[in-house]
């Protein structure tokens, strides 16, 4: 763009028709070249953008779905453990209390995002055509 503007400025400053036309023809050539280059470049930019945005949105949707399902499931499990714990406390059942608290703590310690890392690893493995051994 700067080259074109500079060339235009040169036009304005020239009183010599020979130079004016010479610059005009040069500009004409440059315009055609630049047009073709810019159009190609823009198409590439738009195509690249579409690909990247699609990839990002896919990841985002996967993450959203995964988190919703994971936390819903965990919440349900925590509620069940608390029922067991409350029942154990009420009935003075030390063994049941110990088991209930132990399960609760294990679930709490387990990262809800662990599955996502596994999904990513699986996805990478699929992309890399890893041979699975069952």
């Amino acid at each position, binding site marked *: 763009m700067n080259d074109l503007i500079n060339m235009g400025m040169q036009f304005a400053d020239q009183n010599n028709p020979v130079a004016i036309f010479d610059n005009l023809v040069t500009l004409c050539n440059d315009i055609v070249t630049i047009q073709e280059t810019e159009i190609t470049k823009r198409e590439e930019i738009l195509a690249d953008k579409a690909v990247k945005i699609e990839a990002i949105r896919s990841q985002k949707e996967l993450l959203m779905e995964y988190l919703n399902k994971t936390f819903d499931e965990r919440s349900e499990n925590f509620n069940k453990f608390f029922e067991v714990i409350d029942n154990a406390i009420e009935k003075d059942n030390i063994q049941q209390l110990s088991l209930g608290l132990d399960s609760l703590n294990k679930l*709490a310690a387990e990262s*809800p*995002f662990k599955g996502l890392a596994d999904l*990513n690893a699986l996805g990478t493995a699929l992309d890399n055509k890893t041979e699975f051994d069952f």
Partner: protein
Amino acid sequence: MSFLDRLKSTASELIDKGKDQVLSLVESSKIEDHINTIINTSRDKFIKEDDFYWVPDIPPSKVSNVLNSYVLLDEDEQLICIYDNTLLGVVKDSFSFSSKGFYWRQFLKKGKYICYRDIHKIIKKENELYFILEEGSNELLDEWKLTLVDSQQAQQVNELLFDFIENSINENQVSNTLEKWVKTIVLDRELTQEEKSAKLEELQQTLRIDSDSWSIIIEEIISAYPHIRSARDISFFSKITGKQAILDYKESNKIKAESDAKYKAYSDKTESLQAELNSSIGEYGRRKLESLKRTLGVFLSYLERIEQKYKENYYELMDGCDFPKAYVSELGQLNMNNSELLKTATTTGSFAYAAVAGVPLVVKSAVTYLGAASTGTSIATLSGAASTNAILAWLGGGSLAAGGGGVAAGKIVLAGISYTVTGIVAIASTGLVASSIFDTKLTQALDYSCEVDIACEKMEASWVAMDGINRRVTELMDVTLNIYDKCIIQLAQLEPIIPQFNTKSKEHLLAFQKTALLIKSISELARVPLFDDKMNLSGESEQVVINTRKILNTEL
């Protein structure tokens, strides 16, 4: 106004005028060049005795005769050749060749004129010449008939007319010539600038056209130029001014401004969400510490009292409650960084230790108690680095953090004390905010806006991730507070029996065991990190953490 704008605004006004001016200049200049050619090649066909007169030797009287009778010259028109057989002042047949056309007058008839470029064909019949003006027509009209002296003269005049017609310049020839020339120049990319300039100068001097008219001509020619037209179906100047993305800085700036506004909005929201998340994590850490003080701190004081009294079966007691020895000895190995002794107390409830013991607890093991009941000072104020470090060090004794235990590990576990750690947590969990957001090379509006769009899309994805972290924080907070409530209840039940604790009493043991298990649970919950060891959602390498930390701390 720029050159291009000036040209565009005046083109429509000057186009016709310029073209006529060009054509007339071209005609005159070309004819001048060719007059000599015509004279040199045709003159010998006629001699003065045949009453033919050629420039520059036309007698003024003859010039006067023809001008007064049938020849009407334009300003830029000149006589070249005259045939005048006026005798003794009586004009008979006469004809004249000018730079533009052919004039003739027959005896007792009116003068006639025909432009060279209007003559399509000449048909000779004996001593008569018929001018055909329509292409494809052979109709001989008296209106366009020239009668000569004899067949020989008719032949001579016919040949002379042919010379003039052939050398006359018409509008098509002008445009064809220029177009051909322009085409050569534009297509020929091998020509250097100097060679192009030489060709231009030559033509410009030949045509003697002023710069304004010349520019207009070139506009017309290039706009109809097949190469450009077939390539893009546009005219030269309109395309230049119409190329917003390239030449219109205003439009580019507008696009950039819009992109900037969008990016700022997204960035502001991202920062706001990060701040909320950081606050949430910080609040969780504070609540967790608070819970530990009010539960674990109190319980450990009870343990100490029981240990003092029942030292021999203390560990049996602890074993029975599934409190491993290592757990307790771990407490004993912590080093206190300051000698200040703090009380363990609660501001509410019926089990304030101070009320039972009456004196501040002296901690002989390496566990620190934080409290403020006696002094009324807020916990936050008391939680100086030295006091907090003990608890943090104890918490960091697990297998959570890289690098082992100690205060640093404890900080990571709590994840609410240090902003740096919180920032790492908040950003590392996204895995989607890449450094390409801060692409510094956005020179074109579209490229810039596309970069911004991609960056904003990534930020949107990071919002989902941050929401996930928030939900994790909420989850741990809820579980911790639930266990905390149970601990408080059990501690309240245990407290009254501590002074008279009887290891033989089933009721005492049951109360102690229930409390101990819940205390153990809450202390283990306090060690649970928000994330796994890698502290990110996607399982990527630490590089993500480092990069995003940079982004968070310096640029967002």
